[in-house]
Every structure is written in C-alpha cells, then in structure tokens.
C-alpha cells in the first residue's frame, strides 16, 4: 500500500445542522493552497480535492459503526486563454455545481470552504441514535523517492455527536 502524507493541511471540525432530517455539513480545509497545488492549477491540469464524508453511529466503549459514506469532489481547471478557473463540484459522483472563477482568492474559497452541504439523509435512523460525521480531504498524490506514489490526506475531522431530530450537546 502507498504511504499517506498530510503536508500540513488540516480540515476543521465539521459542523452538522439537522434540517428536515438532512445533515447539512459545514467545514473548511486550511493550508491546502500551497505552492505545489497552485503550480498544478496554474498549469491547467484538472486539480482538486476529494472530501470523504462518513456518517457513523456512536457506540460507547466500542468502535463507531459506519452507516453511510459519500464523497465531495471539487475540481478546478484553469483556462489560460480565458484566464478563468472552471470549478466543478460533484456529490456522490453527480455534478451539483459548475462555475467559473477569475480570482485566486475566490477559487480558494470555492474549493476549501463547504457550507451547508446536504450530505446525508437521516430519515431511517431512530432519534435515539447518536451520530457523528467524519470528514477528511484527499489532495492528490505525490511521489516519495521519485517513484513511490503517496496519497496526500488530512486527518479525519469529527463533528460533535448529534441526533436526527435535534442537534444535541455532548453528554446529553
């Protein structure tokens, strides 16, 4: 298996808001727009992040039970002639948004800040369950020793525990 590396990028703790039995997730990826990443984007190669989101059932004194998982792909491609960044966003493999951005700051915001992402439906889970959302970002790959490919990943960011109807504070 290839090694993984984080390279200083971090993902914030996801914040989950339950609305109409949907988990709306907010999180932010920081320190991801490094020189290597910018060079790659500016070269015109499709470049982006894959956010892996997991919904887990919290279990005391035991491992959490995975319930659902999905991916959010944010890929940017720079058109040097038009001097415009085309950002495509896919949730669970389906294109949900495609827009052009001309400014790098806008691009970074577009790619690293996720707001109210309707990641999971919560209809089938009992309200007594305590749930957790985990998010990690995969930022492409790099080679070690010139030939060992490694995937660049962040650590998992875990949300607070919540229930299906209402978000609950810890220990409630």
């Amino acid at each position, binding site marked *: 298996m290839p090694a993984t590396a984080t390279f200083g990028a971090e993902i914030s703790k996801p914040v989950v808001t339950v609305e109409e039995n949907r988990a709306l997730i907010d999180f932010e990826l920081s320190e991801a727009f490094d020189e290597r990443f910018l060079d790659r984007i*500016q*070269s015109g190669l*499709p470049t982006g992040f894959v956010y892996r989101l997991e919904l887990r059932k919290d279990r005391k004194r035991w491992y959490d039970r995975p319930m659902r998982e999905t991916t959010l792909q944010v890929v940017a491609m720079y058109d040097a002639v*038009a001097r415009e960044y085309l950002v495509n966003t896919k949730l669970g493999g389906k294109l949900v948004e495609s827009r052009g951005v001309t400014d790098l700051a806008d691009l970074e915001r577009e790619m690293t800040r996720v707001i109210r992402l309707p990641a999971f439906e919560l209809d089938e889970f009992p309200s007594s369950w305590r749930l957790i959302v985990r998010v990690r970002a995969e930022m492409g790959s790099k080679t070690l020793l010139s030939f060992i490919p490694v995937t660049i990943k962040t650590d998992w960011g875990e949300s607070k525990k919540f229930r299906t109807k209402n978000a609950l504070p810890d220990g409630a």
Partner: protein
Amino acid sequence: MPAHDFKGRRRRPQRSDARWVVGGLLVLLVLFVGVLYFFQRTRDLPSFLANNQVLLFVLWYVDIILIVVILFVLLRNLFKLMVERRHRMLGSKFKVKLVLTFIGLSLIPVLLLFTIATELLQGSVDRWFTAPVQEVLEQGAAVAEELVSRIEKGTLRDASQLLQDIRPIDLADPQQRPELGDLLRQRLQTTNLAMVAVYDERVFIQAAIDPQAGITDLPELPADFLSDAAATGWAVRPVRQVPGQSGRLILAAAAGPPAPAPDESGGDQAAPPPRPIVVAGALMAPSLAEKTERLIDASQSYRQLEVQREDLKASHLLTFLMVTLLILLASSWVGLYLARRVTVPIQALADGTRRISLGDLDHRVEVAADDELGVLVDSFNRMTQELKRNKEVIEQSNLELVAANERLAEERALIGAVLENVAAGVISTDAAGRIFTCNGAALRMLRQRESEVIGLAAADAWRDPERRKVADLLSEELENGHLARELHLVLGGEWKTFDAKVTAIDDGESEQEEGAPGEGESGRVIVLEDLTELIKAQQLAAWNEAARRIAHEIKNPLTPIKLSAERLLYKSRQEDPALGKALEEAVEIITREVASMQSMVDEFSRYARMPGPRPTSVDVRRLIHETIHLYRDLKPGVAVRGNIPTELPAAQLDAEQIKRALINLIDNALEATDAPGVVEVSAERRTGTLYIHVADSGRGVPVEARGKLFLPHFSTKGRGTGLGLSIVQRIITEHHGTIRVEANEPHGTIFTIELPS
C-alpha cells in the same frame, strides 16, 4: 500411461510444459512490446492521461504484486531447496547451483539494464526542463498575454469612452434610439472595434457591427459577464465562437453609475435603477488569435509537464521496474522450471535406485521427458525390468536347482543304494583322475577299503602291479568315449578275470589337466564285472557239452559194432554157411569204428594235454608273414594277404602256439571263402594292446552260431572234431588275451585277437 513424478504425483506431459514455457515467454514479449508501444504513444497523448495518477497507482500495485510473487516463488523454492539439502536429497546441490545460476544470469544484466535505463530516463526528463526552453516558452506566453491584455485594455478604454458619450442619452427613451445608433456607428468608424452594444443593466438596448469585420450577428455573451460588469464597473472576456468569424472577439464591458432615481422621496424602498453598460468587441485576427493561443497552450503544456515531472519519472520508473520484475519473475520461474526438469528425473532415478537396492523391482520411474533424460529414465526402467526378469529367472532356476538337487540327492541315494547292491564294481574318477566313488562290490573285487582309494589318484590308489592294470586301463585313450577290456588280475593269490568297461563322463566344459583322463571329459567310470565264476561255469558247461558230444560220438560207432556182433551171434546159432563172410564183414566194421573211436580219443587227449605258453620276444610282423606264406596259391581265386605296419613292435608271445592259432583261423577262412575272394590278416598296436584281425569275404557265420563257435566239438562244417576254435581260444586265453568274432562288411567274418603287449 500417465506420467508421475518421483513422489507419485501425476505430472502433465512435458510437451504441455514446453507450451506453457513458450506461452509465458510470448506473453512476456507481448507485454514488453506493449510497454514499448505505451512509451511511444505517450508522446501523442495528453499529458494528464500519460501521467495519470491512476496509472501511477496501478503500476505501483502491479509492481508490489510482482515483488510479492517473485519473493514468494524464490523464498518458497529456496526453502524447499534448504529442506532438500538438509535431508541430503540427491540432486539438491545441483538444483541449488542451477537455480542460482539462472537467477544470477538474469538478475545481474536485468538490474544493470534497469539502473542504466533509470539514469538515462532521469537525465532525459531533467534535460526536458532546461532553462532556455522554459525561458522561451514563458516569454512567448507573456508576450501573447501582453498583446491580448493591450487589446483588452484598448477595448475597455473604447467602451468607457463610449459610455461617456452616451451619458446624455436617455436609454429608456425610444425616441433617442436613432441618435444612439448614429453614435455607435460613428464610434465603430473611429476605432478598431468590430462591434458595440449598449445594455440597460441586463436589457439589450442597441448594437452596431462593423460590416468589414465579417461578424454576422452579435455573439452570445459569457455567463455573469454583464453582472460582473455591473458589480465591479467593468469586465473583460474573450469569446471564441463569433458568428461568421473564426477569430477571437475580445469583449470589454464598462458599466456606468446607476441613473438617478426618478423619485427619492417615496416611503417605499424602490429597486436600484438600472446601470448603463457598454460592451465593446475588438476582433483578433484568426492567425493572431491562433498564435497567441498556441503560445499560451505551449506554455501551459510545458508547465503541466513540469508540474508532472515527478509523476512522469515515477510512472516511467515504475514501468521499468515492472518490466524488470516481469523479466526476473520469468527468468526465475524458467530457471526453477528447468532446474526441476533436470533434477526431478535425477531425483526420481536416485529414488528408484534406492528402492531397487532395497529389492523393490516393481518400482518404475515415471518422468515425462523426451530428451536424453527421458532416454536415461527409459533405460533405467528397462534395466529394472531386466533385473526383475533375471531375478525371476534366477529364483525359478534356484527353485529348479533345489528341486534338481533334491532329485539328484534322491537319485544319488538311489544310485548309491543300487551301486552298493549291484554285483558289478563301479568306480568313478573326476577330471583330475582322482577316484570319486567306489562301490562296495568294486572294493570287494579289488580287496581294498574305501579309505584306501577315495580321493586318491588312481595311480596312487593302485600302486601294486596287479591293481595297476586298472589304473592303466582308466588312463588309456578311449574310442568314442568307451573302452572294454578283460582284465586278469592275481588278487589274494587267486586268478581273477574281470570284464572292464571304461566310459568317459563328457560335459564338454571341463578343462584338461595334466594327468587327466582326456580332453573334454569331466571324469571316467569303470565298471568291473567279475567273470571268474562265470568262466568257470562256462568251462564246466563246455565240458558238459563236450562230454555229451563225446558220448554221442562214442555211441555212434557202438551201434554198428553191436549190430555186427548180434548178426554174428545169429549166424552162428543158425549155423549159417555165410558165417565166415559175415564174420569178416563184422570184424571189418568193428575194426573201422574202433579206429574212429581211437582217433577221437587221441584228439581229446591232445587237447587235454596242450602245454602252457612259453612267451618270448617275437617279431609279430614276421610271424604273420611266415604263416601267410604257407597259404600262397593254396586255393585258386582266393588271395591270402597281410596288412601289417612295418613299425609293429615285438611282443611277448609263444610263437608256436600263436602260429597254430593263426593257421586254424586261416584254414577256416579259406574253407568259408569261395573264389573270387580274399583272406586278409592285419595287425596293429593300440594303447598297449596287440590286435590281430583275420578277415575273409566268405559266407560268414550265422548270428545264432557265433556264441557257440569256441565250444569244444561244435562245428558248422559238418565234419571234424569241432575242437579247432576251442584250442585257438585256449591258446589266446592262456596268453591273457581275448578272441571275438564279428561280421565283416559287406560279407564275411572277422576274428579279432587282442593280446596284452
């Protein structure tokens, strides 16, 4: 027959194995060609495909799997080899050498090639990104971007100028549209713009197109173009798809401040008034647009390659590594396979040898091979089969030998019992002339004990002159493996006569030894028959017969005498006047018959009074010639001749008696032979015996009469006393010789005298 390895597992035929090897090598070749093709194709592929990260990971995983497989194959086989070496299996050392040789032979060049290729690749990739190339591409792109930027700025400036020009015009008033149109057309003529358009916020108001620009219609504005312009006051966008043109249209939008609200005192918050936006479009010539785009694209491609440099190196490295590992795997596997191909038959042969040495001759080495090893295995199996067959033959022979030995022992016991109970003496000697057996009868005949003869040479066992005759007879040369002789020995002060028959035991294999009986003989058997009592009985019978014949002969003249006497008595009583004449006749008859009786008695007296022989050294050749000389021209038409070798040695004989015997025999021969005929006397000396043959071509003697010829008073002539041959036999017997009669071929009779010389 299905092939099995030496452990008994079924193996595929070797031809199938060869196909697997060839197939594997072909797959490897195809793979190599495919990799080569891949490298060729990557030149034409988009860089993001050639350096796809999925490909990178696939290559990495393939390499990992190959490394694991190679390690598994090598370690497994090395472990097996270690186990085999520890158990000292035959062929394990050879297999280790073979495997290491194969792996070494493939590993060293492959790794060398891999290292060199890697270095070359790294160097080549690094040379791609040399400073001059990068500088040229970046500067070219910068020039292109600067050109586009200038066009954009000029267009934006014209749009801003036009925005200032139309400020007095109320865009919401349709009456002022012709004025606006004139203004727009005028601007087109005074600038390089291809088109201008005026929007009230997002609502199209009016536009003008330069007819010389070749644009047939207004282009579709990019998304968010007007909103961006409204939000920021300006916007610039290139448009590639221009109706009626293949060039690029640089659109610049300048947004004016919002128009003053018509009524600002209203209580309700009204929507913000629309902002006038002027969109100006400058057309870049197709060639210029293409060149700038190509410069920018080239720079982008270069930057992409630079960004992907590590991935590119990694993918090439991993591909090289994959090919290297594939070659290693193939070479290791082929090495192991070939080693197994060589060592498996050897191990099978060794195992077979071990099992055969333990006596398992049913074991067969089953290895599918059609090369020299196959020939070796087949030869080994044939040898095993032959061994088994020989063993069976030997076992069968052994059984037969045991049975034969048992039979022989039984027969020996039987023969021993028979020999011990037969009256004849039987003595056997081995090839060296040592006495092997001597039955009781022989010991009694020779008056010896068993310990005095068994195991000794005949000459040692019988040293005294009398018994020495037996030893001499045993060492004589045989005729057709046989020899018969009558032996006369004086044992214990008694005359003993034995009929001795010597027979050679011929096995055809015995080597001749010094003093051995004869070539090709494994020994001799001498059978002694004691004739002493038989001869006495024969003599008694002969005398009985002679007495009966004499009585008969005496009775014959007595009858005429008696009849003559009775006739005289009758004549006398009758006072016959012819008594005188009768008396004369009777006296004559009586006198004649008495003379006959007298002659007969005299003959017998002579026979009875015949003196014993007085032997002297006699020239036998001369004796025979003198005797023959007496009969020269005696009977016309019948030749009497001699056939005597000149070197015939002298013999100890009574010349007179032997001459008498010869005369008798020649007389009989002449009498039996009618003219024309021949009577031949011949002599020879063989093995210490003098042979004299008297042969005639006459009538011959009937078979039934031959046994009685030598009896006294037996005659086939119908006249004479019949004592001639009896006298001859007596002379010969008294010389310790024998006489026998046989038929001559084609007709006639042969009398043979055998005399010890």
